[in-house]
C-alpha cells in the first residue's frame, strides 16, 4: 500500500482550474518530487493531501486513511512544512516546538523532551531560548521543519522548502531531507527547482497547469528526451533556424532556441563523436558559430520538452512565446490529458507522458 495516494484530484478557485485531475502516489519510505512552475497546482495538491482544502472531485489517502473522511486520523500521521516558515515570532524556538507537540496532545514532559532533542538535532540549542524574531531565514526554516517532525510523522510534506534560502541553508535543508528519508519517512517534496528534484527525489512527477504531464526517475525523464544534447551558439541570431535545418537529422526530439536567440539545443540519443560532425556540417553550410558543445540533459531540458516553456517562468502568460515546434508531443499531451488519464502505471513503463515524443 502506498503511503500517499492522490487520485483524480480536481480543484477550481472561481474560474481558475488549479487542478484538472491529478493522480500520483508515493511508496512508503520514498521521496516524490512534485515539480512544476509557479501556479502549476503543486501547493493546491499538498493542501488537499494535508486536509487544508477539500477537492471538487477525487480522493486522497495517507497510510490508507481517506483524508476527506477521517481528517483527524490523517493529521495525526503527517507533518507539514509550508512555503513560508510557519513559526511564531513572539515565542522562543523551544516554545514553538513545545506548542506544536502539545497540539499533537503530548504530555508536558514529553513535549519538552521532544523539543529539546529536536533543538539539539537541528543545531539550534543556543538559539532555542531566544525569541524567533531574531532568527535568520535559514534558522527559521530549520525550526519550521523541526516543528513538522515533532510527532515523528509517517509522511512529511515539504512545500518548496528551499524557496528564498541562501545556497548554504539550502544545502543544509537538502542534507536533512536525505537523513529523513534514510530514516524511513515518506516525503512529498514540491519544488520549482529542477536541480532540487534531481538531487533529492526518487521519483518525479512533473505538473503543469493542473495536470501531471510526466512521471519517472530523473534519469528516466532525461532519457525520454534523448539524455544528451548538442548545443550550438551562432554568431548571427538569424542563423539559428538554419542550424536546426542543418543538424535536425541528428535530433531525437524538438530542438529549441534559447532566450538569447543565439543558442540552439538539439536533443540527441548519443552525443559521442557528434561534435566534429556538427562542426563540419555547419562549416559546409557556411554558418559562423561561437561554440559547439555536447552536454547531458538536465531537468530543465526535460521540462522544456514536456511543456514547451521553461520551468521558472509564469505558467499563465507564456502562450505567446512558445517556440516554433509547438505542435509537438508535449503540447498535444497537455490538451489530451483528460482527468481520467492515470499516471499510475505498471513498473515496466514508468514514464507517463500521454503522447510519444521520441
Amino acid at each position, binding site marked *: 500500500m502506498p503511503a500517499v495516494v492522490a487520485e483524480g484530484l480536481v480543484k477550481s478557485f472561481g474560474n481558475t482550474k488549479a487542478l484538472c485531475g491529478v493522480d500520483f502516489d508515493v511508496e512508503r519510505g520514498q521521496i516524490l518530487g512534485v515539480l512544476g512552475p509557479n501556479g502549476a497546482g503543486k501547493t493546491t495538491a499538498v*493542501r488537499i493531501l*494535508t*486536509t*487544508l*482544502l*477539500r477537492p471538487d472531485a477525487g480522493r486522497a489517502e495517507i*497510510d490508507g486513511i481517506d483524508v476527506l473522511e477521517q481528517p*483527524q*486520523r490523517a*493529521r*495525526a*500521521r*503527517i507533518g*507539514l512544512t*509550508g*512555503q*513560508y*516558515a*510557519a*513559526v*511564531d*515570532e*513572539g*515565542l522562543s524556538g523551544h*516554545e514553538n516546538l513545545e*506548542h*506544536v507537540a*502539545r*497540539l*499533537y*496532545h503530548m504530555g508536558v514532559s514529553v513535549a519538552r523532551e521532544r523539543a529539546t*532533542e*529536536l533543538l539539539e*538535532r537541528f543545531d539550534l540549542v543556543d538559539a532555542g531560548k531566544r*525569541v524567533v524574531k531574531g532568527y535568520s531565514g535559514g534558522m527559521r526554516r530549520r525550526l519550521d521543519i523541526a*516543528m*513538522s*517532525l515533532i*510527532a*515523528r*510523522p*509517517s509522511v512529511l510534506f515539504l512545500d518548496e522548502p528551499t524557496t528564498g534560502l541562501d545556497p548554504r541553508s539550502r544545502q543544509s535543508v537538502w542534507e536533512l531531507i536525505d*537523513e*529523513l528519508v534514510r*530514516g*524511513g*519517512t*515518506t516525503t512529498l517534496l514540491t519544488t520549482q527547482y529542477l536541480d532540487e528534484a534531481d538531487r533529492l527525489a526518487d521519483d518525479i512527477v512533473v505538473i503543469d497547469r493542473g495536470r501531471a504531464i510526466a512521471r519517472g526517475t530523473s534519469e528516466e525523464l532525461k532519457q525520454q528526451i534523448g539524455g544528451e544534447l548538442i548545443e550550438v551558439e551562432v554568431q548571427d541570431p538569424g542563423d539559428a533556424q538554419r542550424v536546426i535545418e542543418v543538424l535536425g537529422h541528428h535530433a531525437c526530439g524538438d530542438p529549441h532556441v534559447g532566450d538569447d536567440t543565439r543558442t540552439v539545443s538539439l536533443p540527441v540519443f548519443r552525443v559521442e563523436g557528434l561534435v566534429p560532425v556538427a562542426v563540419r556540417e555547419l562549416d559546409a553550410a557556411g554558418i559562423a558559430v561561437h561554440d559547439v558543445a555536447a552536454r547531458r540533459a538536465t531537468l530543465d531540458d526535460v521540462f522544456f520538452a514536456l511543456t514547451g516553456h521553461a520551468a521558472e517562468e509564469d505558467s499563465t502568460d507564456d502562450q505567446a512565446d512558445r517556440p516554433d515546434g509547438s505542435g509537438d508531443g508535449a503540447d498535444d499531451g497537455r490538451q489530451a490529458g483528460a482527468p481520467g488519464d492515470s499516471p499510475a502505471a505498471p513498473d515496466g513503463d514508468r514514464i507517463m507522458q500521454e503522447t510519444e515524443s521520441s
Partner: protein
Amino acid sequence: MTTVEEVLLTPAAEHDVPTGRTWLLHDSWTEALRHLRAMRRSPELLIYATVQPIMFVVLFVYVFGGAITAPGYTDYKQYLLPGIFAQTVLFNSSFTAVGLADDLTKGIIDRLRSLPMYQEAVLVGRTFSDVVRNLLTFTVMLGVAFAVGFRIEGTMAQAVSATVLLFAFSYAFSWIQALVGLSVGSVEAANSASFIWMFPLTFVSSAFVPVETMPGWLQPIAEHNPFTIVTNATRALYNGRDPGSDLWLAWAWAIGIALVFGVLATRKFASTTGK
C-alpha cells in the same frame, strides 16, 4: 546520542493520537498560552493599546468637557467615561482580526489546521487571549479615569455587572473580528478593515454626547445602535442608577452577535488557507 538521533528522524510506530470534543479546552488554552507568552515579550504593544484611550479621556474631559453638558449629570466626566470604557474595550477587539491575519499570512493557520488538534480551538484561544489583553488595558484606563476625577457611584455589584457586560460585548465583537481577520488578505488590510467601521459605530451613539443633541434624522440610528444600549446600561450601573431594560437588551445583543458570528467565523475557518 546516536540512538536518540536515529529515533528522532524516523516515523513513530504508533500515530493515532486522542482527538475529539474533550480537547477543545486543552487546545484553546494551549493556543491562548502561545499568544499570552508573545504578549508578555512585547509590552510595547500593550502600551500603544493604552495610550489611545488615555488620550481620549484627556481630550474629551479637558478640551470638549467644558462645552458639553449632559442632562441628568452635573459632571460630564461621570457621563463620558463609561462611554470611553465601552469604546476602548470594543476597539481592542480589532486585535483579534490583526492577530489572525498575521497567523494566516505567516502560514501558522495552515500548520495548525494540519494538526490533529480541535480545530476551533484556534479561534477560541485567540479570542480568549484578547480578553486578557483587554483586561490589562482596561485596568490602566480605570486608573487614569480615577486620576481625572471619575468616581464609581454604584455598588460593587453594579460596577462588576457593568464591567462584565462590557467584556461580554467586546468578546462578541471579537468573533466579528475573527471573521474579518480570516477574510482579508493581509495584516495591513486587517488593520483598517477591523477598525474603520467602529468609528461611526461608537461615535453615532450616546457615548460622548446625548443623542437628543444630534440632528433629527440621526437620532433613531444612534438610539437603536447596540453600542448606545451597552453604553447606557454601563453608565447607569457605574453611576448607581437603574439601567432598566437596557441591561438585558445589551446582553441580548452580545449573545446574539457572539452566536451569529461565532458560527460564521468557525465556518470560514474550516476552509481558510494562507496565501
